[in-house]
Structures are given as C-alpha cells and as structure tokens.
C-alpha cells in the first residue's frame, strides 16, 4: 500500500506518459523489451488506481485525493486534481483497459511495436487526466491532447482507409471541443476561476446557460457520439487497429458522458432542463434507429460500432430524463432521478467492458483470417470452442441478458424512464429486441452452423494470452451483472449530490 501522502492521482496521470516516452525512445528495435516494459508500467498504474479504493470514502460527495498547485498563475490556471464517485470507476476502467490493450497487441503488432505501445501509454495518462481534472483548462488540456495519440494510432496501424478515418475523427472532435474552450474562458471571466467546482456554484442567466450548454453539448455529443454527429465513429472503428477500437469504445466515448455529468448538468441546470427533450429525442433515435442500422451491417466491427452508439443512447437518456422524472407529479418518492443517473453510470462501465470484449473478440478472429466480414466466417464453434463460449457470453451481455452487466444499466434506465413517461420507456425497451436481433444474428452467422470454408476449418483456438485477456472480461462482466452493489455504493453519495445540483435552479 502506498502512503496516502503521495500524489496518487498525479502518479496515475504522469507515470504512463513518462513510461510511454521512455518506450518510444528506448524501445526502437527492441520489441520484446518494449512489450514487457509497457505491460509492467500499465500493470503498476492499474495497481495504483486500485490502491485508491481502500482510501476512498463512499459517504461523501466531496472530491478526494485532491492535489492543487498553481500551474500558470497569469492565466488563473491551477493544476487541480481529485476524484469522486463518478470519476473513480471510470479511472479504474481506463487503467484496466490499457492493460488489456497492451496484452492484445503482444504478437499482433510487429511493425513499430514500440511506437504503438508508447501511444497507448501516453493515451492512458491523458485519459486519466481527463477524469481526474478539477480545473476546466486541465480537463481541456487532456481532453484535447488525447487526440494526438489516437490520430497516430489509427493513421499508422489502421486499415486501408485509415487516413480518411483518422482525419475525420480528429477534425470532428476538434471542432466540437473548441466551442467548449470559448465557453470555459467566458465562464472564467464570470467567476474569476477555472475551477470546475466554482463554475458549478456560479449563477448564470438562462441565455448564458443555453449558449454554454450548447457549447458543451457540441463537444460531448460528438465524443459520445450522439445521433446525428456520430458518423465519424463507424469509420474510425472500422479502420482502427484492435487496440484503438477498444480504447475508443471503452473509454473515449465515456469521456463524453462524463463531461455531461461533470459540466452540463451541474453548471447549466436550467438550460439542461429546458433542452432535455432534444437530448431525449436524440437518445431515442440513437437507441432505435441506429439499432436498425446495426442490423444491416456486414462488417463485424461496423456492427459493434453502431451497437455502441445505440448503447450510449441509454447513457444520455438516463442523464437527461431526470428532469421529466422530477416534473412528473405521480412520482413522489424522488428516487427515480438517482436511479436514472446511476443507471447511466453503470451502463457506461458495463459498455466499457462489453465493447472492449467485443472488439477484442473480433480482433482475435481478424488476426487469424484477416477479414472482418461476417460472410467470411461460419461455424467457428467447431474449431474454436473456448473462444465461441466466451463470445456468446459477450453477446448475451451486449443484448442485456439478466446476470450480465449489460442488464443492470439498461434495466435501471428503462425503469427510471417509466417514471417519466411510458412512451419513452417503451421506445427504450425496444432495444432489448433490436439489440438481440443484431447481436445474436451475427453470433449465429459467425460462430454457429457448419464450417463454412477452409479458413475456418484451419482456425486454432485461443492461446493462453488471449484466454487471459478475454477471460478476465468474462469474469468482470458477470461480476458486475450479479453483484453491482459495490459499484453502486461507490457512486451513491456523489450522484445524490449531482442530482440535487441538476435539479436546483440557478436563476
């Protein structure tokens, strides 16, 4: 156990970045060394992030493990880090996923392996920084900085249309976030500080709130991504190497959702309440329409990418349906609000695990046959029984089968939306049918049936490395599915406070 006086969060943020630069510098031509070094540093960072758990007080919403020093006093910027019940689970999800991604690259990435691993380590540090930031500019610094390694990852190790995909990805997200920067600077002049906690308490008129909300909305909606600004995601996912897809789906999309919770709801509660129907409508379109789009995909990665957009619809639905729940006169207990946000959070964690698992499984197949087309497979169960068993677990979790993590979040959100409006809940519940259709249909075509071709006949089952990688995800998905309480306890106090902030008018 590390002493609590250590700057734990700084370690989690900067250790991977320094390790990444080290690997990039000294790993050239020494792929074996680079792999072990990257694995060791990511495991150490994961352990440090786990070490936060025993010291974390779940009874308070206050920020913990806080570090605050002046960074650039002339601009009023402080290096201010801290975690609460929302950011801590996402932080641990990030450090865990990075370990998995580094394992997934082991023999697969041969070309410039050290640069690949370095990009992921640097990326990890930046994502951790985004979740731990309590100063708006520190947040933006990491939020925007992580585009650089991702741009390089998709561009160097991606598929045939990688250049188009990566430039589209970069420009989309960059355009989204610059408006947020202007909004942050504007708020700095209003409240005299870049501290997110101060911004949350600052009074704002409705007109200001609406403009600031829209600036945030563009930034985070592109990142999540919400319909109609989702078009970069299928391209980026299809072209990215396996590790890139995993990080994109498991963590980067969550940063959008996290942004809504950290910025939009507490800073602009009245604008959120005013515009909630717009976001609910977008979320429902994502859940239903994008679900249908996923149904017709022939490319496995594209299918999972669309399924991600659809599942992230639940996250935004859960976050913004709270205003309707609070306004519903039939709902007296008030627990629906908390249920909705907690559901959104659980959905984010769960989707992080499931989408990572799905993309890794596709990666396992792709490494063997070099195709992502559903039609290139068929009857994989005959040659890869262990792999098939694990994929079925992941598919069931993606469908939302009770007993897997996918069920918990979706069920909570549907239940909460029922308290707002029956029709919203009904539309959201459609996902159980659509999601089952596209996921199980893909599983049927890829995994089951007779062996379709010679390639499938020659497949070898997962090796030890892949078994560990996928097996750990199976365990976590089922664990969160049957025993989500530790996770819920972690965020309970914070979400209680957040709900109160979101429902208190600033006018």
């Amino acid at each position, binding site marked *: 156990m590390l002493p609590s006086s250590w700057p734990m969060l700084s370690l989690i943020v900067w250790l991977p970045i320094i390790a990444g630069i080290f690997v*990039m510098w000294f790993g*050239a031509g020494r792929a074996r060394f680079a792999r072990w070094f990257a694995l060791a540093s990511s495991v150490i960072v994961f352990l440090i992030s786990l070490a936060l758990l025993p010291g974390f007080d779940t009874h308070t919403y206050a920020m913990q493990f806080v570090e605050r020093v002046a*960074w*650039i*006093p*002339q*601009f009023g910027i402080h290096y201010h880090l801290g975690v609460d019940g929302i950011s801590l689970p996402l932080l641990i999800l990030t450090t865990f996923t990075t370990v998995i991604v580094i394992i997934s690259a082991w023999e697969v990435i041969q070309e*410039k392996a050290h*640069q690949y691993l370095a990009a992921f380590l640097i990326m990890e540090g*930046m994502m951790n920084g985004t979740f731990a930031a309590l100063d708006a*500019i520190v947040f*933006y*610094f*990491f939020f*925007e*900085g992580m*585009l*650089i390694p991702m*741009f*390089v990852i998709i*561009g*160097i190790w991606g598929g045939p249309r*990688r*250049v188009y995909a*990566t*430039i589209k990805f*970069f*420009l989309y997200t*960059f*355009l989204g976030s*610059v*408006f947020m*920067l*202007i909004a942050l*600077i*504007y708020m*700095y*002049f209003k409240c005299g500080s870049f501290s997110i906690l101060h911004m949350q308490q600052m009074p704002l008129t409705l007109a200001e709130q609406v403009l600031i909300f829209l600036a945030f909305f563009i930034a985070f909606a592109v990142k999540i991504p919400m319909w109609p600004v989702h078009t970069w995601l299928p391209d980026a996912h299809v072209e990215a190497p396996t590790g890139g897809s995993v990080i994109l789906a498991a963590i980067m999309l969550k940063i959008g959702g996290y942004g809504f919770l950290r910025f939009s709801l507490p800073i602009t509660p009245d604008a959120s309440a005013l515009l909630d129907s717009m976001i609910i409508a977008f979320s429902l379109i994502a859940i239903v329409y994008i679900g249908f789009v996923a149904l017709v995909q022939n490319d496995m990665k594209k299918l999972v990418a669309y399924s991600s957009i659809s599942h992230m619809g639940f996250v935004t639905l859960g976050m913004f349906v709270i205003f309707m729940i609070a306004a519903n006169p039939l709902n007296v207990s008030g627990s629906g609000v908390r249920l909705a946000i907690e559901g959104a959070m659980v959905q984010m964690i769960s989707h992080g695990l499931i989408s990572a698992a799905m993309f890794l499984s596709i990666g396992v197949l792709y490494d063997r046959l070099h195709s992502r087309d559903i039609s290139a497979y068929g009857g994989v169960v005959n040659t890869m029984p262990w792999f098939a068993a694990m994929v079925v677990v992941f598919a069931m979790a993606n469908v939302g089968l009770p007993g897997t993590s996918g069920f918990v979040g979706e069920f909570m959100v549907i239940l909460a939306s029922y308290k707002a409006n029956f029709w919203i809940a009904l539309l959201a519940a459609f996902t159980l049918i659509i999601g089952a259709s596209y996921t199980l249909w893909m599983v049927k075509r890829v995994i089951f049936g007779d062996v379709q071709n010679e390639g499938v006949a020659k497949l070898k089952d997962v090796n030890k490395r892949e078994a560990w990688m996928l097996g750990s995800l199976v365990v976590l998905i089922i664990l969160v599915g049957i025993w989500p309480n530790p996770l819920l306890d972690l965020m309970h106090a914070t979400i209680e406070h957040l709900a109160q902030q979101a429902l208190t008018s600033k006018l």
Partner: protein
Amino acid sequence: MPNLTSLNLMPVLPEIILAGMACLILLIDPFMPRHGRNVSYALSLLTLVALFIVTLVQMSPMVRMSFGDMVVNDPMSDIMKLASYVSLAAVLIMSRGYLRDRGMDKGEYYMLALFGLLGMMILISANHLLLIYLGLELMSLSMYALTAFKRDDGRASEAAMKYFVLGALASGLLLYGMSLLYGVTGGQLILTDIATALSHDSGSLALKAAVVLIVVGSIFKLGVAPFHMWLPDVYEGAPTAVTLYLSTAPKVAALAMVIRLLVDGMGNAFADWQPVLIVAVVLSLAIGNIVAIAQTSFKRMLTYSTISHVGFVMLGILAGTDVGYSAALFYTLAYIVMTTGGFGMILLLAKQGYEAESLDDLRGLNDRSPVMAFVFLLLMFSMAGIPFTLGFWAKLAVLQAVVGIGLWWLAVYAVIMSVIGAFYYLRAVKFAYFDSPTDPSPVNPDWNVRGVLALSGLLVLVLGIFPGVLVGFASRAFGGF
C-alpha cells in the same frame, strides 16, 4: 541638447557593439581564406553571445529614456531583443551547412544578417517617428539584399524585386501616415508627446487617415492580410536559410513597431485603429487557413500558416489591454520557436543540389528518422494549437484576451478558422507518419540542423506542459495578466 561627452551611451551599448562588430566583420572578411567563412561565422555568434550578456545585465523593470527621449529601453524591448538574438543565432547555426552546400557561404550573409538585427534593435527601442523609420529601413534593406542573395537564381531575384517594390510602397504609406500624424499633433515626433497631444484631439478626419496609413505600413512587415501578397512569393523564392531568418526575428521587431506606434503613440486613438485591425484579423485568419489547404509546397504552406499566426498575434493587440499585448508577445515568441522548427525541417530534408520544398518530400519521415519525425509531429500539432504543445497556450492566451474585452464572436471565428487550419497540419503529419518514403535514404546528418530542431521540439513539448516561464517573460514585458 546635451553634448556628446555628457551623453549616457550605456542604454545603446548593445547597438554600438553590434554596429562595431558588423563593421569589423565587414573589414576582416575579405582577408580570410577563400573557402569557408569560419571566422565570420564564429565572430557573428560571439557577437550575439556578447549582446545577450550585455542586454541581460542591463535588464531592469524600469522604463529608461535616453537621447532626449528618442530611445526607450523597457522590459518589452529587453525581452524582444533577447528573443531576437537567440532567434538569429539559431538561424545562423542552422543555415551553415545549407549555405556551404550551395556555395552561398559568403561573408556578406553574416554582415547583412547583423545589420538587419541592428535595424530590428533600433526599431524595438525607438520612441521617435524618424527612428522607427530608420530602424525599419535598415532592417528591410538588409532583408531585400538577403532575399536576392543567390543572385543568379531567377526565382530569388524576382522575390527580392517584389519584396522591395511592395516594401517601398508600405514604407511610403507609413511615412505619409507619420506626416499626417505630425500635422495633427502640432509637430510632435516623440511617441510619448504624440500620446499626450492626442489626448486632446479625437475623431478628426486627418487623424483617422493617419491611423489607417500607419496601421497599413506597420502590419505590412508582419504579413497580415490584406497586405500578405508578398509573403508567399518572397518566402518561397528566397533561399530557405533566408526564409528562416525572414520569418522569425523580424516578426518580433514588426510587433514592436506595431506596439510602439499604435499603443505607445496612438493609444488614445484606440477606437480608430481597433476596427481596422479586426478587419485585418478576420481576413488573415481566413486567407491563412483556407488558402494553405490548396498548397502542395510545404514552404508555401508554412507561409500561409504564418499569415494565420500573425492574425492571431493581432488578435492580442486589438484587445487593447496589457493582457492582450502580453498575449501577443507570448504568441510571437511561441511562433518563433515553431517556425524555426518548421522551416528548419526543410533544411533537414534538403540535400546538395536538391531543395525539399514539397509536401511529398516529407513522406515516410518516421521511417527515415523517428526522432526528427516526432519533432515534426510536435511542431505541426503546436501550430494547430493542440494541447501538450506550446501552440495551445499561445492560442489560449490571445483568446482569453479577446473574450476578456467581450469580443467573443471574434474568438469563436478564430477557433473555427483554426479547426479549418488543423486540416493541413494533419495532412503534413500524414505524409510524415502514414506514408512510406519515396526516398528511403537517411535524412541530412548535419548536427547543427538536427540539434536546433531537437531543441525546438523539446521547447514546444516542455513549454507545452510548463508554459509558465515563457508566459512570465511575456507578462513582465507589459506588467500584464
């Protein structure tokens, strides 16, 4: 007027040293061996080191007037001069190999470079309209001559001619504006006196005309649109070593001129010159970022990127606050670090008898030299203004200044333009990282070029994470932030 013996020459000691050394180099250079200008090179660098030390020792937070208020030394001039020395030293070190390979390593290069620097220093410290003009012309004439340095080259001669004609026009406009200002203020030449005189007079048509002409004359050297026409042709036509010089230190001096004239001299006419600058900024950002997309030459692309960067610098000036001026200076210093690296990349990729000016020459840089490719990546992302690099803080500083005076629509416009601009920086990174090399030979092994490039990359990264040092310098110049 005091007589010569009672004059305090200390405030202009750096200028005196420089002028003396430049003449000395001029004298001894013809007696040196025919090949290799080692002595001139070494003496020039030595001069710069000496100047750096003298200026550093003389630095003080006070405003020091001398020569009957004609010369001013203040924190702004100290910092700008120090930046100019360092920038010129980097240029000289990097150009060494390039000049030698092309038979251009002549003593005149060093001499003209030093006289150009002298002009810049006079400009930076001028508190008098005539002195400003003198400094500007000394600087510009050296630059014209340097552009035409490769005299048998048609492109370079054409560029120099263009530069000279347009530069003369701009000087003419500036002089005309100054003469109007002289009339409006009732015969004042000293900037501080002009400021006093203008506090009584406001809104006369003659003053407005003077303001417009002076703004035009002074932003010409910076290359702010719509007075950017000369920039692409001159930068492309001039030998890369000269382009490197043109695009760095003179920008600091031009910024000094803008600040001296508009802020120190005509600060009371702020309401007159702010709208002019807003128009110039809107045009610069649009032209710099959109036209750059169409370029296939890396050198031209960087030139258009310069137009966009000076647009951002002007954004800080038009805020009209100390915070804004500090932001503009900070942006300029960051710009110099990035541009030294940017044009330095062309020197790195060039070979004997081959100018690597096209974007295609960047192909596969990551395979040829991973370290230099990483430096390139940092420079490009820095120019695009992405965090973890210096360029982000520079953009943040000017945006903060502009939002601070309530012009948030202009800030929104600026960030949209920088997103458009990001595209061509990304495309350049694409060439270096995602394509395979057409020419797999290792890049230029010249350690002078590599060293300065590595240093600029390191600065972009380290100052990108800890920008406080540079921000501190810039804010000390104006007591801003």
